[in-house]
């Protein structure tokens, strides 16, 4: 079968069980190039597990994953990143004692396969450092480039999450609740940053705030109990009776 060049990421009937519980059930998704898609669903729907499966952090029980036409189902996580499939984390997963410039330079060096060189000084990799700085600057982190990550305000740490991912030069970027814990006014700015990412980066983001989802997603995947309930443009999802029931039911119980 000829791969469709417009589709950059495709999953085929992904399954993941924990004991008798099906956390991810028959998920087949397609992410077109340049996409800004959202993945939503109630708590425990399996969104993060799905991201873990796609990025290779967890191994699925069955199903296939294709990136740019190549089957990457058996490829380990780090190698998937080098093929252009990168994620961020819902809970900050940063390097607390390193500065942003060090952190992002590290990611650039890993991408350029020079991170194992112990005979050359770090400052000999001037281009990697400049590139890291440009990434930080594009996210408004230039001012804090040489401050320790653990001393940065939370919102800037969320941006650094994205900066680290960008340094891998992703084709596909999976953002796991990029604005988690960020106050409303700041989360809008954060999503503006995501919206402004280059066209050649295809984005799938998990988000709970429906205002953000409807403002920034061109298409929405609704995951319920591990399975895809509906995948459609925002207008269709907004008016779908089943989606309303899931969310209203959730609200009533919550």
């Amino acid at each position, binding site marked *: 079968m000829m791969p469709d060049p417009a589709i950059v990421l495709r999953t085929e009937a992904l399954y993941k069980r924990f004991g008798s519980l099906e956390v991810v059930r028959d998920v087949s998704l397609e992410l077109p190039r340049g996409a800004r898609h959202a993945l939503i669903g109630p708590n425990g729907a399996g969104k993060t597990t799905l991201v873990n499966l796609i*990025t290779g*952090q967890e191994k699925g029980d069955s199903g296939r994953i294709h990136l740019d036409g190549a089957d990457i189902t058996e490829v*380990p*996580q*780090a*190698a998937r*990143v*080098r093929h252009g499939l*990168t*994620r961020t*984390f819902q809970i900050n*997963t*940063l*390097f*607390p*004692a*390193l*500065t942003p*410039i*060090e*952190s992002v*330079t*590290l*990611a650039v*060096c*890993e*991408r350029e396969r*020079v*991170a*194992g*060189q*112990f*005979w*050359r*000084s*770090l*400052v000999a*990799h*001037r281009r*990697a*450092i*400049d590139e890291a*700085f*440009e990434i930080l*600057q594009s996210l408004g982190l*230039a001012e804090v*480039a*040489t401050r320790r990550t653990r001393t940065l305000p939370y919102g800037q740490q969320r941006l650094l999450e994205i900066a*680290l*991912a960008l*340094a*891998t030069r992703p084709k596909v970027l999976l953002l796991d609740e990029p604005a988690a814990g960020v106050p409303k006014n700041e989360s809008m700015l954060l999503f503006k940053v995501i919206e402004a990412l280059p066209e050649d980066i295809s984005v799938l983001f998990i988000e709970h705030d429906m205002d953000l989802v409807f403002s920034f997603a061109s298409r929405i995947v609704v995951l319920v109990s591990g399975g895809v309930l509906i995948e459609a443009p925002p207008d269709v999802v907004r008016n779908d009776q089943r989606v309303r029931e899931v969310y209203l039911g959730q609200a009533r119980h919550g």
Partner: protein
Amino acid sequence: MTDATAASSESFRWLQRRRRFSVYEIAFWLATVVPFFVFPTYLTLASQIAIAALFAISVDLILGYAGIITLGHAMLFGIGAYTAGLISKAGWGEPLTGLLLAGGFAGLVGFVVSFIIVRVRHLALIMITLGLGLLSYELANAMEWLTGGTDGLQGVDIWPIFGTFKFDLWGYTAYGYALIVLFIGLLLSRKLVHSAFGLSLRGIRENLKRMPAIGSNYRGHLQKIYTISAAMAGVAGALLAQTTSTVSLDTLSFQRSADVVVMLILGGTGRLYGAIVGAIIFMVARDQLADMNPQYWYFWIGLLLMFVVLVTPDGILGALSRLARIRE
């Protein structure tokens, strides 16, 4: 764009500053020659300190930088010591080649062991390293034909360095030799720590989970640093064998594995010089306290260790560098 370049230069200069030699470093190395003139009766102790410091640096590279906890590094120290001793007993007493061969062999063993080391973490890692340490001790004990068992290797005959500097009773040559090797070891470690590889090790220590998510083959990094650390530990062991003309079983002992970690914690991990400061404090304390009360001197080390961990968790050097920063 010029603004961006200028701002980037600022970050770049910040990174550059981090690897510059400080006045404290230079002062420290100048001070290391003082024992030659002021404490000539303590030169043997001074060379033991230099050897312990080199060993502690090798542990700092894996423990302080990469976050690999070990309680069995004496295995590699001992392998280096026995290799150097056996090479000399076999009739080749040239010290420098002996040193390199011993380091190379310890590095090779370290490389083989690293395949297990990178697969475990936390408590399992401590147990694996501890187990390897005990294993090698008992193995050396059992292989009496090779190692001399509990008697150790006696009569290790080392030729003069460069055919000129004979190992003397006072320890002038021994201390000079150990000091120069320590200095080279520190320079190489310093180079490594300030390389892209050194940065990736700190990344592993700071957040292992993130490393594969930025495309890092971190296990390869860990194997590499463990191998390098093993070679350095082997060189330290070889230095001890060559400067004392004997190799005893206790080069492989658990005590030695534990002591080196204690030195590192005392001095401060992840800063190279912490290993040296820790070695100095530990060895001088042992020398002085053992004179007063040979049986119970560990009591004081235990007390000091608890004090340091509770009061200044980043070690004595960490506390000193904070003081220096406040003063500036």
